[in-house]
């Protein structure tokens, strides 16, 4: 078997420890996990089994029966609830199944079941917040059969069950978007990183039309005044300004960046745009 070239090996050696996490990374994720894993039991066979029964029953249109089983059996065990840790992504507030049972008259339950059915169908059609937290929930649909043999592959069905379990536990797929179900759902106070990233990607793609890019940046800035990607925003703004001929304004931002983050990789592109090659 051919070995790597000397240059390639030197490059790998040079970068050897550059992908390592810091102690702070390790502690931060551990803290986030503490917040997101709220039950000590790693797995509940009963709940997984129940989920399978629910899904099967839903597929033959007997969700009413499934709802009764859920209400009867769920309170017997604490659900494992997976949520995003604070600051990672907005989390839909939970509405335990027990609350559905609180009103407890059969007619009330039956009123709720069509709503639950609609939400579960919606959840099946598109990824929910819960599924976003458990990305494998939809992976098994797209993965090849070879992947199904992977030692990690069993987690796909597990996570599918997990996501469904969260849907069960919450009773809603995405309450934040369902004002009638959870009118007091808290709105995120700051933008999710994904949203910020998407906004900046759009602005960057619009750079051939600097005015458009600047308008997108203004909208992003208004929406996410304390966004985490300030440097990236400034870089794109400076590039847009300089390419549209507003060199003084662009260079002013470049100077700010040089002061705030002289080692930012974005600076080289800003410099080459605002100062020429």
């Amino acid at each position, binding site marked *: 078997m051919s070995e*790597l070239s000397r240059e390639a090996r030197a*490059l790998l050696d040079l970068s050897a420890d550059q992908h390592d996490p810091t102690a702070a990374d390790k502690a931060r994720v551990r803290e986030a996990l503490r917040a997101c894993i709220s039950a000590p039991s790693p*797995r509940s066979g009963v709940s997984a089994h129940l989920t399978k029964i629910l899904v099967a029953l839903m597929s033959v249109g007997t969700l009413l029966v499934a709802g009764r089983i859920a209400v009867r059996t769920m309170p017997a065990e604490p659900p494992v609830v*997976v949520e995003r840790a604070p600051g990672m992504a907005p989390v839909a507030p939970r509405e335990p199944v027990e609350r559905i049972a609180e009103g407890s008259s059969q007619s009330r339950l039956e009123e709720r079941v069509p709503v639950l059915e609609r939400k579960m169908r919606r959840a099946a059609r598109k990824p929910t917040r819960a599924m976003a937290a*458990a990305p494998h929930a939809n*992976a098994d649909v797209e993965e090849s059969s070879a992947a199904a*043999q992977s030692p990690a592959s069993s987690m796909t069905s597990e996570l599918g069950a*997990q996501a469904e379990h969260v849907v069960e536990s919450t009773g809603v797929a995405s309450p934040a978007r369902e004002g009638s179900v959870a009118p007091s759902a808290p709105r995120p106070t700051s933008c999710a990183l994904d949203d910020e990233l998407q906004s*900046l990607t759009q602005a960057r793609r619009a750079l051939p039309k600097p005015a458009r890019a600047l308008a997108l940046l203004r909208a992003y800035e208004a929406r996410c005044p304390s966004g985490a990607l300030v440097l990236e925003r400034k870089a794109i703004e400076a590039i847009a300004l300089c390419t549209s001929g507003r060199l003084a304004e662009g260079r002013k931002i470049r100077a700010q960046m040089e002061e705030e983050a002289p080692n930012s990789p974005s600076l080289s592109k800003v410099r080459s745009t605002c100062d020429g090659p």
Partner: protein
Amino acid sequence: VDFDAAYQASFDLAWRTLRRMGVPQSQIDDASQDVFVIVHRRLGDFEGRSTLKTWVAGIAIRVASDYRRKKRRRGMEMEIDESIIDPRPGPLEQASRAEARAIVDQILDELDVKQREVFVLMELEGLSAPEVADVLSVNLNTVYSRLRLGRRAFDAAVARRVSKGGA
């Protein structure tokens, strides 16, 4: 194995694998969290047929794969600071360690995903071929074949950069 011990023993491996399999810095916390949520949920079923290392590496590979898929679905490109980084490499000898990492990341992004998985696990993580076969559930010959192709592609990409840098 209790969860804390598993976390302490395998966090670094999971983090590095996610990074090297293309999860951007902005999503690395979420992805690491996903890996260990799975570890937490599945730990009761972990029977020790594979080592903790290969088990967690397999989970990280799958999580990274899902992040790439999500990124494709959303039409997102590389995260901003990586996408507007000056792509022209300096001479390798002068490259700082961070620049070397950026170059390695760029080259890994150019590799076929299956070759990349084997290359990352063997060349960078130091797993043996049988361990990688276990992680990816492929036979040993497939591992060696992907490693050979991955090395060849990596070498070619380095050579292109060296010649550009020297030009």
